[in-house]
């Protein structure tokens, strides 16, 4: 039980405390100023300022309308007149991630199969590849790949698509969700629906119902399934063949979702629905809010998006997302209990049954002192074909089924929980313990 009588009291207390925050004594300055490239960069920037045309973008939550945006400055950085190649910023065209002069394409080289190791290149902190990979998951479909964020609460503004896993093309903006359906890719930004038959050409197809907004979407050859939320915060599962016209789906009679809201995802051509039911909500020790999903979480599967079957084996954790490979599925889960943690469940019948894996595949559990949660000692990701497991000590393996693991040379540095993004031809790694001046990520081109 918390000590507040109503929501206004919570917010007033929030403001009173937040207003007491004090800034550091000195404004931080990035390490770039100390590098020999910084002088060149700065001089070039002066020249740039004379020629640069920053794209106006009105964003004014607290201040007035503005012409500066991170995207705009990043675009200028990469424009033909202003390219100042930091040696640690942009990889070579052959081995690492690179971006073209207009920052509307990104290249992630490497081989698609039989990985033996990686060639590593730092990724620039303004690289669009970082923003596009926020989801840490790649949508694979018949004609290639697409990347964006998975659920709507924390939307990025971009979608990137690729036919070959090497050359990525920027799609429409702003877009927070992407899925592959019968006629191609669908991307959704707010209530605007964009469609593309190939990931290269996009058309604004229309808008969804104004009364709801989509928080999660997935698609397969049968159509699309989405989670919608109305003005009261009620979640619903809906089906559509075109992502424009939606109709409610009854997953099971009488279901009421918890406040967390369910999510949907496609994996290996099958649609999955993961969520918690409202019945189990409550408060835990010390007034901490526990996820109702601790005791009442479920996962359903469907091939047509209309009829759903409850999977078996979920162990009281909350399904977060699924990694797919050609021979199996890995369900990543979160525990709402204290001290919490995450879990791995494997399925080798394409999601009908799940088996908990307390050993986290080849990783083993992370060792720590005290109650610090149950987490894998590293990370596992996939690109739709292959699982890649990397332990914190730098050992790495690949697998297509999650049972048989083949050692692979790593060299990508320390890996922490969920710090991998496995792409079709390589892997993005976010450093587990970044130091000031470190690149925000490195790309390993598979070889």
């Amino acid at each position, binding site marked *: 039980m*918390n000590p507040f009588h*109503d*929501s206004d009291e*919570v*917010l007033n207390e*929030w*403001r009173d*405390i*937040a207003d*007491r*925050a004090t*800034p550091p004594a000195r*404004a*931080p300055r*990035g390490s*770039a*100023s100390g590098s020999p490239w910084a002088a060149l960069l*700065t*001089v070039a920037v*002066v020249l740039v*300022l004379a020629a640069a045309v*920053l794209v106006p973008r*009105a*964003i*004014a*939550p*607290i*201040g007035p309308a*503005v*012409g*500066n*945006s*991170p995207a705009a*400055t990043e675009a200028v950085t990469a424009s033909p007149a202003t390219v100042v190649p930091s040696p640690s910023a942009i990889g070579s065209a052959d081995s690492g991630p690179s971006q073209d002069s207009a920052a509307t394409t990104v290249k992630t080289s490497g081989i698609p199969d039989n990985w033996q190791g990686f060639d590593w290149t730092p990724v620039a*902190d303004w690289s669009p590849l970082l923003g596009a990979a926020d989801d*840490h998951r790649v949508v694979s479909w018949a004609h290639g790949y697409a990347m964006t*964020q998975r659920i*709507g*609460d*924390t*939307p*990025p503004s971009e979608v990137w698509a690729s036919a070959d896993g090497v050359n990525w093309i920027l799609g429409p903006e702003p877009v927070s969700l992407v899925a592959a359906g019968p006629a191609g890719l669908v991307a959704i930004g*707010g*209530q605007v629906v964009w469609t593309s038959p190939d990931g290269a050409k996009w058309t604004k197809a229309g808008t969804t119902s104004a009364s709801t*907004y989509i928080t999660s979407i997935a698609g397969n050859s049968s159509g699309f399934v989405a989670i919608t939320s109305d*003005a*009261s*915060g009620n979640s619903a599962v809906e089906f559509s063949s075109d992502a424009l016209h939606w109709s409610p789906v009854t997953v099971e009679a009488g279901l009421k979702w918890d*406040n967390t809201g369910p999510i949907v995802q496609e994996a290996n051509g099958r649609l999955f629905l993961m969520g918690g039911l409202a019945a189990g909500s409550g408060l835990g020790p010390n007034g*901490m*809010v526990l996820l109702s999903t601790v005791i009442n979480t479920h996962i359903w599967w469907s091939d047509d998006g209309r009829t759903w079957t409850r999977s078996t084996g979920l162990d009281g954790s909350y399904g977060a997302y699924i990694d797919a490979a050609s021979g199996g599925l890995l369900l990543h889960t979160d525990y709402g209990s204290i001290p919490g943690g995450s879990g791995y469940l494997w399925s080798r019948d394409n999601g009908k049954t799940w088996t908990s894996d307390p050993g986290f595949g080849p990783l083993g559990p992370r060792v720590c002192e005290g109650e*610090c949660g149950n*987490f894998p000692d590293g990370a596992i990701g996939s690109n739709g074909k292959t699982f890649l497991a990397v332990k914190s000590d730098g050992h790495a393996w690949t697998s297509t089924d999650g049972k048989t693991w083949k050692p692979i040379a790593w060299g990508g540095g320390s890996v*922490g*929980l*969920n*710090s991998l993004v496995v792409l079709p031809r390589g892997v993005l790694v*976010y450093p*587990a*313990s970044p130091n000031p001046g470190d690149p925000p990520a490195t790309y390993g081109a598979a070889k």
Partner: protein
Amino acid sequence: MRAQAAINETEILYERAFDEHWAAVFKFLLAWTNDWPAAEDLTQEAFVRLWRNRGRLDWSQPVLPWLLVAGRRLATDRFRALRRRVLGAPQHSPLDDDLHDRWLDVQAAMAALSGLERTSVVLNLIYGSSTAEVAELLDTTPGAIRAAIARAREKLEAAR
């Protein structure tokens, strides 16, 4: 000489932006993350990015929205945020004991809300930004913000 003058000018502008906007960026990121140390770290990172980009900005335009969007992009990588929590974020508490205890109560109450919901109620209900302004900042629609605020109210009332 002209180049040096321009460099100095951007440094002055940067320092001014830090003095004027640190609090707003911190509060925004505190709302988004519900985590005091993380919000401090992310605010620091946002200003480091501003420093790195200071030569490319159009300083005749307001810089606060740039900082907020940059901060949100840093913060919305929830996996990195989770990693930061799990693998050892700075655990210092910048608040005195009494304030720290009060913050834990507020934090627990706000934990039921998503980042979108928290940020929406903080910006809209506390600081008076319009739903359209909040929606633009968070890359969503005014309707979604209204829904988020309604959900947030409901959750805060339900958690009493």
